[in-house]
């Protein structure tokens, strides 16, 4: 059964973003999701940061402070080995969800 909550979707987006881009700070994650989705998805900061910290506590991502290209200190996140495994699970679960929803929509 697919785990089909919205929280899971946000986690998936973040994990996927980090898998593709290496290390990114929170703002970078927001921008990436926005542009990669063709401006369709806009992540709320109020949900993003709690999610980032929760995932860090779960050991899926790790963080360190580094300088941005404009010489500003920011906290960068990157995927851990455990996070890569979690990404696979989340992706699979999401695929199931999409498949399931499609099947229901096509039914008629």
């Amino acid at each position, binding site marked *: 059964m697919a785990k089909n909550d919205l929280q899971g979707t946000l986690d998936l987006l973040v994990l996927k973003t980090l898998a593709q881009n290496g290390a990114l*700070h*929170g*703002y970078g994650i927001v*921008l990436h999701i926005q542009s990669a989705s063709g401006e369709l998805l806009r992540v*709320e*900061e*109020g949900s993003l*940061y*709690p*999610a980032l*910290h*929760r995932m860090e*506590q*779960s*050991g899926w991502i790790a963080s360190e402070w580094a300088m*941005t290209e*404009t010489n*500003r*200190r*920011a*906290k960068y996140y990157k995927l851990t080995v455990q996070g890569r495994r979690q990404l696979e699970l989340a992706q699979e679960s999401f695929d199931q969800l999409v498949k399931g929803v499609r099947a229901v929509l096509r039914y008629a």
Partner: protein
Amino acid sequence: MGAFRRFTNLFRRTAVNHEIEAELQAHIDLATERGMREGLPPEAARREALLRFGNPASTRERVLSADAALSFESVWADIRFAARQLLRSPGFAITSILTLSIGIGANTAIFSSMDAVVLHPLAVPRLDRVVTVAEQQISGDFQIASLANYEDWARQSHSFEQLAVRTGKDMSLTGAGDAEHVQTTLTSANFFSVLEVQPLIGRVYGESESLPGRDSVAVLNYGFWQRRFGGDPAVLGRKVVLDQREYTVVGVMPKTMQYPSDADFYLPFAPMQKELQNRTDRSYFVTGRLRDGVTIKQAQAEMRIVAQRLAQAYPSTNRDMSIAVEPLLDGVNGTYTPLYYRLLLGATLFVLLVVCANVANLQFARGLQRRPEIAMRTALGASRTRILRQLLTESALLGLLGAAGGLLVGGLYLHLILIAMPARIARFMAGWSNISLNGRVLAFSLLIAAGAGIVSGIAPAIEALRINLANQIKAGSRGTTGSGRSHRLRNIFAVAQVALAVALVVGAALMSKGMWSMLHLADSYRPEKILTFNVTLPPAHYDTVQKQVAWYADSLEKLRALPGVTHAEISISLPNSDRGWLHDLEIENRKTVPGKYQSTLRIPVSDGYFLAFQIPIVAGRSFNRGDSLETTPVAVVSQKFVAQYFPGENPIGHRIRTGGLNTTEPWATIVGVARETSYSTWDDTPQPAVYFDAAQVPPMDTTYAVMTNGNPLALAPSVRKALVSVDPNLPLDMVLTYRQYLNEQMTGLIYAAVMLVIDALIALLLAAIGIFGVMANLVGEQTREIGVRLAMGARREDVLRMILRRAGWLTAAGLGSGLVLAFGLSHLVANLLRGVRSDDPVIFSAIAVAITAVSIASSWIPARRASHVDPMQALRSE
């Protein structure tokens, strides 16, 4: 990994806090930068970034809780905050903590005595695995077996690791001051290993010391060691003389091993070969420890088969005999004690509920005052769950402080319970001496304290959250009026308090009434004018019936000759004394129906007994001096006996005997019928009774009743002297007035009744305070409305009536539901007592009136204040 980080976060909360802030700030800075890069002026870019980000404070809170340092760290912060809040309203805090202390304290005391007496009376490892095994003929709680059957059980059963046997024996201890009558328990050597107990000092005896002739060693019970030897460890190796035989003390059992609770000495049981083959003398108690994995049910099933096998092999003695396997604990506790305790603990938990309702009402009132604070915190971004947690932390803290106070109150209460118990009675209650505030009690107190905190806090906390933010902030700190919902809740709590108090008061009243009538059952005998004591004849000295009869004749003659003595009689059982056993009854020329047993009380009395106790002989004759060992044995029977065994017949002339199966006892001819007399205090269904003449059937163990017109206790020294002149070696037990003797039988009941009354009074007081609180609050909130009413021409009496009517509604609702509750529960009390009906109309109506009076009294002050409101002032103040 995550858990470790959460844990380390604990120690660097400020650092974590700063880090989150920096991270969020960086985000805003980056967004501003980008805005500027896209051509916005710096100010606009910044505004745009902030707007986009939303409320940074609330995001920070949520990130922080995701960091889950919250689990420990923020709880601690909550506790500190809660403590500060409580300090800020000391009146509320002190009142709440005091009421909680009383509620929790009472529960702590009852529970710790219940824990010691009922739940863990013996320090026997895995007590639930220890059972008693008994032959069962007439169903009852009699646990008794014959020796030969015991031997067969041990051989034929597989459910038990071991079976042990014991039997009680009265002995006299001589050679050290006054002769003393002691209770000894003869046990097989494995008795101690079945129970898995170790002696406190010294050792227990082994198999080699359980052989006839080698068995002269004794183990002391703790209580007797303390009483008789002052707890001197040098008692080991000492010689004591029991029934003219010398024993060496080899060990002392620990305080926590009062089993059987009346035992003074444990002696090795060394049966002769002949005794081992006896199947008719059923006077042995069998204890066993179940093998691992065997349930009581399985053991019971196995023993039923063993019983059938034995019944086939020995039909003359074992036909219709089954075997009962029961937990040892059931036998130790008896029937009434656990019931009393359950009743009391239930009542005391009711008190705790009343306390909770009271504290909840205080919290409601306080919640109203705190609305601005809560509104402010909500406005600043605190989530509902966060505030709820904070409020509940406060309640839990109150509960814990209440627990601390409760332990003090409980300790004090327990101390009172302990010192009020007569030592004579405490001796016979296994576990009584173990009562203490132990770990289990502590855990129980903390548990109910946390429960009480949450129960009393949850409704007010949820109510406190239901606020209209905008209105609240607009109104500022003025106008703290409760919502209709809040009023309804407060009313419900007040009604619940009254209802619980009504139920408790009814229960306590029924119990007290029952106790009172039971205490006065025997009044017609003038029990305060009768001296009673017990005598047990040592069989070694009084080995013939002639010697026994002579003792009674001589001793009674001496006593009757004493100045001031009007009567001196003996009886195995005095009226209402709950002594004496049921015996099998045989009627000559009447076939017994298998499976249907005839039984009767068997009461040997001296010939003047009926006269002294004013029991009329309604037919035939009484005993007289002419009845002796040389004449035909005679018997007098009770009216109930006639009704049961000779309905519509004249019993006089029929012959009966009570010796049980295969008895050699001679037949006794019924010569008279005595008026029905109750020998029990507890049981109001009369048992058939047969009286024998002690001059023909002398008892070995009996009660003397010496009647006088003066103070019976003043008679005691001359009674002692008179008896010593007959036999200097015979000990007297329990020299008391008959009144004292009867009252001691009911110590447990008196205890339970007193504690129930205390519970009820506490509940009543709290309910009165509850009504007062609700009404005072109502008047406070409605001062303005009352002012308007008065200004519009309402008379003061109208206001008074209006407020009292409100109080009346609360009381009526509480009284109504309380009476229903009481009616439902009162049979629990009534079942325990004699002479009480669960629907006693006098008690129910008296209590309805009393509760109404209490509640009107407690709402009188607020109502008067309302009627004295100055309309001008009330209107101006808002």
